[in-house]
């Protein structure tokens, strides 16, 4: 946060607004020194936003990009697309036209105001992304004999039982030392309302609890219109299901309502940013060396289409190359900067898209969007938030893996990933999942040629030792990207980092 934007931010804070973001509007840079130029390395969101804002400020801008498309990790794989991962496996995506997998980012929190701002400015249509769906399922191999249960039933029973137990703690004088008798009465009333307890503070079968967890026989019309309440589940099994972890995940600020996605795939954002910087980008450019000799920045790159080695030169440079790759490039920067670049490893993740003939989860299970969770290595499956209530085919996100499971999946061939994921996910929809499958696609981030991983993996120690050095302007170069932010792994981090970087680089240029 710098100068005017900080003042505005503080002013808004006083009014009780804007605590959800550091974004205070676009930077409004102007008055670039006559003839000054900037070389941007990487046409991901950070690089393209840097180019957009610096060109507006009056700089001559050129972007070098390794891929043959703009967007970087902002990317959708559509039916008909071809993707070759490291190791040489090529997938031709067999989805129906318009269907897609978002291999990287796939949802946008409502408070990612930078991204939302530029989506609107650049004409990206958004639609709601369903994160929390009460009708979606929770599967744990150690609960309910391995049978997936609706989140609705589990979360209702979890909260009802917790409320009842806390009520008992009050009745057993367990809270006497912390609350006055009056406050204990208030808390009991709160528990009764929140946990749907009966007049005796019990969470029991009845209309009251069924209004949340659902009825055995739902309300109807005519002769059999009266509803029949359902039985709460045994609390021990509810605990074993791990539903509390799912509840908690939905509560985090990253996943709270409202979330968005672009209509037609996350890659629409990269395409829209690409339009804004059209003509500035040299694609298929593999950077091999970055020099700061002679009062300029010179990048040596190989045109991967022709093999020709070329140079690009400018007064300044915004470098958004992921650190795992940048650490392998001959870079003329301070020892501290080089150490910082080398100190941050990249996490891994694997996503697999599974196209199904029909949207059976909607038609048969009344699951419209949202996520079903499992303790199997696929960790979750997510139902499409776009095109709801249409006829198929639709694409389910069949796996979103982290940690150990992501390495295991990344080590498989694309075909094997799809087979394995189908098998594991069929626990949610037996008799349908494998049977309705038409086509699969997968991206293992450890094998993505332009990142060598998913995102920067900072920890408290590396933040302390290297972060400020990494984000500082190093003579004529400044780094930007999600790795240069505290909103790691999110597009918002890339954009905020980019705005901060160009603001400081512009200041540096004006002081030169």
């Amino acid at each position, binding site marked *: 946060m710098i100068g005017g934007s900080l003042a505005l931010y503080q002013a808004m804070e006083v009014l009780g607004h804007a605590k959800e973001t550091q974004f205070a509007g676009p930077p409004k840079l102007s008055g670039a020194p006559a003839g000054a130029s900037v070389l941007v390395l990487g046409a991901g969101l950070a690089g393209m936003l840097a180019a957009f804002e610096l060109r507006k400020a009056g700089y001559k801008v050129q972007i070098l990009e*390794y891929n043959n498309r703009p967007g970087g990790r902002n990317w959708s794989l559509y039916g008909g697309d071809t993707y070759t991962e*490291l*190791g*040489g496996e090529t997938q031709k995506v067999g989805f129906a036209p318009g269907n897609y997998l978002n291999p990287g980012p796939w949802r946008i929190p409502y408070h990612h105001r930078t991204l939302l701002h530029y989506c609107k400015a650049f004409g990206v249509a958004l639609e709601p992304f369903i994160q929390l769906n009460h009708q979606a399922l929770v599967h744990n*191999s150690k609960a309910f004999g391995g049978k997936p249960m609706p989140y609705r039933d589990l979360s209702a029973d979890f909260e009802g039982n917790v409320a009842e137990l806390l009520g008992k703690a009050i009745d057993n004088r367990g809270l006497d030392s912390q609350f006055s008798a009056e406050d204990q009465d208030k808390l009991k009333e709160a528990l009764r309302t929140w946990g749907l307890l009966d007049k005796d503070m019990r969470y029991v079968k009845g209309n009251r609890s069924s209004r949340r967890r659902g009825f055995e026989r739902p309300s109807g019309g005519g002769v059999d219109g009266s509803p029949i309440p359902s039985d709460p589940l045994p609390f021990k099994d509810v605990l074993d299901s791990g539903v509390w972890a799912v509840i908690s995940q939905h509560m985090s600020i990253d996943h709270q309502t409202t979330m968005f996605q672009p209509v037609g795939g996350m890659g629409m954002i990269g395409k829209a940013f690409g339009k804004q910087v059209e003509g500035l980008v040299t694609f298929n450019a*593999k*950077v091999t060396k970055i020099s700061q000799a002679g009062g300029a920045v010179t990048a040596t790159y190989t045109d991967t289409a022709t093999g020709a080695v070329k140079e690009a030169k400018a007064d300044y440079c915004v470098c958004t*190359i*992921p*650190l*795992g*790759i940048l*650490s*392998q*490039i001959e870079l003329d920067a301070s020892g501290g900067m080089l150490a910082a670049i*080398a100190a941050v*490893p*990249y*996490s*891994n993740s694997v996503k697999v898209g599974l196209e199904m003939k029909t949207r059976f989860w909607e038609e048969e299970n009344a699951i419209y969007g949202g996520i079903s969770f499992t303790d*199997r*290595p696929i960790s979750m499956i997510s139902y499409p938030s776009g095109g709801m209530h249409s006829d198929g085919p639709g694409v389910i996100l069949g796996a979103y893996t982290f*940690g*150990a*499971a*992501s*390495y*295991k*999946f*990344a*080590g*498989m*061939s694309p075909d*094997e990933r799809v*087979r*394995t994921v189908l*098998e*594991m996910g069929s626990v949610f929809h037996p008799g349908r999942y494998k049977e309705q499958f038409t086509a699969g696609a997968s991206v*293992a981030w*450890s*094998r*993505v*040629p*332009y*990142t*060598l*991983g998913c995102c920067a*993996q*900072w*920890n*408290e*120690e*590396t*933040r302390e030792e290297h972060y400020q050095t990494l984000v500082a302007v190093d003579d004529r170069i400044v780094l930007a990207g999600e790795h240069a932010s*505290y909103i790691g792994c999110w597009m918002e981090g890339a954009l905020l980092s980019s705005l901060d970087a160009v603001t400081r680089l512009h200041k540096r240029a004006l002081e030169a």
Partner: protein
Amino acid sequence: MRILILSLLIAAPAIAAPKPAVPHPGAEVYQNVCQACHMANAMGAVGAGRITALARNPNLQYPEYPISVVTGGKGAMPWFRGQLTDQEIADVIDYVRGNFGNRYNKGPGGKVTAAMVAESGVAAPTRGER
């Protein structure tokens, strides 16, 4: 880690690597973890950057170097101390040093043991991710 590996093995037979009669305990670790990047044939790969080939790699001659890399990470490669046990780390290094065209497990350093990992390995970060 072990729970995940077990459940994965049930659903997905490991990709066939050249198998000795009694599989080396490091082979399974290699398949479950290392080949995500270094590839089943240990040849690595080249894109915008490079994933090091472990096949016929002279840096494996002495165990200390691979121990420091696997425990502490290097560049884009994360640390695996704490993700894998010292025994698993020893097994997989021993496996790679004796396979993929490497014959270092008979040379200096010999067999890599968990004790060697404990002695010269890099400690995992003690404070959380951020």
